[in-house]
């Protein structure tokens, strides 16, 4: 949510539609209440500030939310962190979307960093799997790890293709 605010300040409902646009069908599950509760918590934690703006006559006062410097730092740290604690594709996908939308980082560079990390893990798992002295049952677990990592790496390749292509189109659009 912080990352979705990084591009520019937004009203709560705008923020919600940004998240929905970024996540596609997976974002439908998020309701307006969750957005406001989370914003309130983030404000309490000092990562977000809000300002009341003049409401239109037929609408109540509304708040525009923006990142504090601490919030910005938090987003920057999140983008560059390469841990893959669980196969959380949604979170990584959001990083790419947020990085591109807010011009915070080059999504392709994030993919590269992530790939380095996954290759490092694949390397460890595979070295272990290639060792002939490994007990076959333990080897089975290693094989599973290798297969998971290969699937993740394949998906990163798809991400790389798509974001490289988008970057190319955007560069062409404004020379």
């Amino acid at each position, binding site marked *: 949510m912080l990352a979705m605010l990084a591009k520019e300040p937004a009203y709560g409902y705008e923020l919600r539609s940004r998240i929905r646009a970024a996540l596609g069908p997976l974002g439908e599950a998020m309701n307006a209440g969750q957005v406001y509760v989370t914003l309130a918590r983030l404000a309490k934690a000092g990562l977000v500030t809000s300002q009341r703006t003049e409401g239109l006559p037929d609408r109540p006062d509304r708040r525009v939310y923006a990142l504090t410097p601490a919030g910005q730092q938090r987003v920057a740290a999140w983008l560059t962190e390469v*841990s*893959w*604690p*669980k*196969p*959380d594709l949604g979170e990584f996908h959001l990083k790419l979307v947020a990085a591109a939308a807010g011009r915070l980082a080059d999504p*392709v560079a994030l993919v*590269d960093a992530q*790939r*380095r990390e996954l*290759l*490092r*893990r*694949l*390397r*460890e*798992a*595979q*070295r*272990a799997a*290639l*060792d002939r002295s*490994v*007990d076959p049952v*333990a080897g089975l*677990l*290693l094989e*599973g*790890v*290798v297969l*998971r*990592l*290969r699937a993740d*790496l*394949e998906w990163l*390749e798809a991400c*790389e*293709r798509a974001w*490289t292509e988008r970057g190319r189109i955007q560069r062409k659009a404004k020379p």
Partner: protein
Amino acid sequence: MSESALLRARGVTRWYGRGSALVRAVDEVDLEVPAGQTVAVMGPSGCGKSTLLHLLGGLQRPTDGEIWLAGHRIDTMSERALARMRRQHIGFVFQSFHLMDELTAVENVELAALLAGQSPRRARRRALDLLDRVGLADRATHLPSALSGGQRQRVAIARALSNEPLIVLADEPTGNLDSAATLEVLRLFEELRTAGQTLVVVTHDARIAAIADRMISMRDGAFADDSRFAGAGNGSAAGTGTIYGGWR
């Protein structure tokens, strides 16, 4: 530029076509491979990685730039000198093996040595040694058609090693192999790496990249990422939890 690099490329560029149909398959690539390093070059199909490998091995000439192997500049060499260089100092491994169907495994392996002028007896002894090293001593007299894909690729790797090449260049060596056969080839590359063989592998198989000392990502004919992996793995089976934390 360091003097110790076995293979050096500087500003290497290769174009295809001309005018509006001009394609920069390889675009000003700089590369230094020190002796003993295993390098994996990865990238989507069409990124120029195979062309790069052909340029490095003297199978094609660059449109621009310089390529040096063991202190010799190969991009401007005469065709004859280049052919000798390839025969004597470069081992090639291809996706589709390129074995001679009429020759047995051992004959395929010794052929390169015979062409390079070695005595038949010496060439045969070396070929048998190599087949033993790739685990195919008992298949020496088989024709390629009697071997599995993984076995054929291992014969092709033995052949690539027959002249004790300075460098082995491999183009998608596991592209046509199932996963068990890929494991055989991976094991072999890992042994070569440990033995200090210089190796450049172009691949989209992450498993190969995972045994390399260094991984280069290529996009649109240029290097987009170049990462070195610190230290050789010790092959220990411990610590799987940290390898894939959340998968339990």
